[in-house]
């Protein structure tokens, strides 16, 4: 009887996506802790940094310093958006490695609008808007190529990432005040205003992030487009037979995904973390991390939000870790491990098959 109960618990664990995600994250942290121990550092410092990033620290005069929380939320914004950017094509059965490129194009578009047009009130909103559109175009290209010509979206997005990186540099070199590394500072009208925790970079971009999460949930679960996307993802040919335009759902999913990533680029640029306009020399890696965010969050809206927050916490804790004698790269390792463990997750299907087989054998024998 007891073994029967235990078995059903394991079955429940194996079937529950949320539990598996938690398990994967825990495993990632466990391996990270072991690594920190192995190189002779104190993992308590790592966890205290992560904890402080979540709740803030007490100031000397007894009041509470919320700055770290604000920074954590600010860092989470691009992660959440890039997670959405990965998650939507996943629903259609595509793998969008191109969030990085879409992010760069969004950032470049926003910066161009901010620097080429003379300042006017509400400029920040239009910057976000052009970033949204630029990302959508950049992602939409891949969608069209995939849907019309059946070009592998993995290779195409990787190529477009680097094309975006160098194209962005070429564009930014022509912007006012361009040097090798940066341009003139963005006008104040183009910056997102800070709110709530003024000492940190937390800005009104977070409302757009929350709106995007809502939009994602709405599109996927409540609209005809979302339904055709999911149908395409489950079985493309069956969807086609039912009269669903798979071309449209593939292109639309990639375009909307690109729009999310483009928005992330604009929010990072306009968030006030950079004193001047940017000429990027390499990837910011938010796009690649978005893959991990989406995988941890099981492509659901709320999962993406939570996973994005987790990654934001890790990013913010980096500076604390470095000051507490823990190499900050441990967070990258943990994130990488989480993705590796997620890929191993498909092995659980084999475990399930094996358990079902055993169960069947037992039943047959009992009869």
């Amino acid at each position, binding site marked *: 009887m007891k073994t029967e109960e235990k078995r059903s618990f394991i079955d429940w664990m194996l079937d529950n996506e949320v539990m598996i995600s938690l398990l994967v994250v825990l495993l990632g942290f466990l391996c990270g802790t072991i690594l920190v121990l192995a190189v002779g550092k104190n993992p308590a410092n790592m966890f205290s940094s992560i904890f402080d990033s979540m709740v803030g620290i007490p100031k000397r005069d007894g009041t509470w310093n919320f700055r770290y929380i604000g920074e954590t939320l600010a860092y989470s914004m691009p992660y959440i958006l890039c997670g959405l950017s990965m998650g939507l094509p996943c629903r259609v059965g595509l793998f969008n490695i191109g969030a990085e490129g879409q992010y760069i194009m969004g950032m470049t578009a926003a910066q161009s609008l901010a620097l080429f047009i003379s300042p006017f009130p509400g400029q920040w909103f239009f910057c976000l808007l052009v970033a949204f559109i630029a990302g959508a175009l950049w992602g939409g290209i891949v969608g069209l190529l995939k849907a019309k010509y059946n070009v592998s979206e993995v290779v195409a997005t990787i*190529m477009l990432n680097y094309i975006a990186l160098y194209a962005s540099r070429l564009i930014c070199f022509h912007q006012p005040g361009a040097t090798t590394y940066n341009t003139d500072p963005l006008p104040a009208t183009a910056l997102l205003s800070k709110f709530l925790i003024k000492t940190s970079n937390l800005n009104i971009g977070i409302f757009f992030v929350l709106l995007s999460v809502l939009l994602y949930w709405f599109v996927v679960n409540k609209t005809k487009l979302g339904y055709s996307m999911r149908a395409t993802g489950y079985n493309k040919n069956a969807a086609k037979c039912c009269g669903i335009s798979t071309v449209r759902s593939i292109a639309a999913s990639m375009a909307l995904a690109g729009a999310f990533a483009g928005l992330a680029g604009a929010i990072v640029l306009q968030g006030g973390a950079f004193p001047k306009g940017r000429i990027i020399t390499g990837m910011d890696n938010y796009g*690649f991390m978005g893959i991990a965010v989406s995988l941890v969050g099981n492509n659901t809206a709320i999962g993406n939000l939570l996973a994005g927050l987790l990654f934001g916490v890790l990013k913010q804790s980096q500076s604390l870790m470095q000051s507490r004698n823990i*190499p900050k*790269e441990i967070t*990258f390792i943990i*994130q990488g491990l989480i993705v590796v463990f997620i890929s191993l997750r*498909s092995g659980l299907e084999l475990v399930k098959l094996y358990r079902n087989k055993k169960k069947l054998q037992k039943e047959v024998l009992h009869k």
Partner: protein
Amino acid sequence: MNILLQIPTILMIVAPILITAIGGMFTERSGVVNIALEGLMGLGACAAACCHYLMEAAGYGRYSLVLALLLGAFVGWAFSLIHAVASIDLKADQTISGTGINLLADGLTIFVAQILFHADRTKEYKIGMLPDKIGMYPTVYIAVAVVIIAWFVMFKTPFGMHLRACGEHPAAADSVGINVRLMRYSGVMISGALAGLSGGCIVLTQTIQYTSGTIGGRGFIALAAVSFGRWTPLGVTGAAILFGGMQAMGVIATNITSLRGIPSEYFNILPYFVTLVALILTSGKDYAPQANGIPYEKGAS
């Protein structure tokens, strides 16, 4: 400036891309896509840089080059096993496990540098690989050897034929007694070792330390070269020379008067752009191994 004088430089930049691309060709021919090449190159490069610096500091600088390359290849091989287990035994999504290794490599290499050297990069060594009398770097000869051996193994040995069969039709290969699992493991491990080796080649010829930007997308260029070269040694070699040549042009254009005005970004962008266009143009025809990227399940149809 005579372009002929630049040939050794161009070949030095082409060599690592070519070595990695040949590895990528092996793994894709066996039926496993490996987008972790970028990360594996980074791991190999970091291992080689650490090894060479430590050996040089200990006074064995002249002998450590070979050792550094071998260590790089070994590290690449070891980490490719993760990808092999995930994608072959556990039937994982190959893109996800590849991405995981790429992310892991980003963190792990710099983490090691932090532990060993207390900086976000490895310490500079004094003397890397030196060119020989005609100006060629040893890595060029390594690349040539790798291509010739790859061609021979792939098309003139039973092993190569079995490997290709597993990428085209694993069920058929299985039915005539070929061990699909072993073949695909070999493919992934060859790609891992070659990626690690080429990481070592980059770090020992083009720079004097490992930083987070050392690889800078060359793994992805190699990936592009594999599909642009249509999965044959000769085609991949041509693609690698083309793409590597463009990268090199970005570096040496500053020395050529007529090209000085062109920003190097134009040269950097070309490999990716050409590959994208080639992908679209060849979209109707299938040059790729038929079963590339699809896990093989024994007994299922």
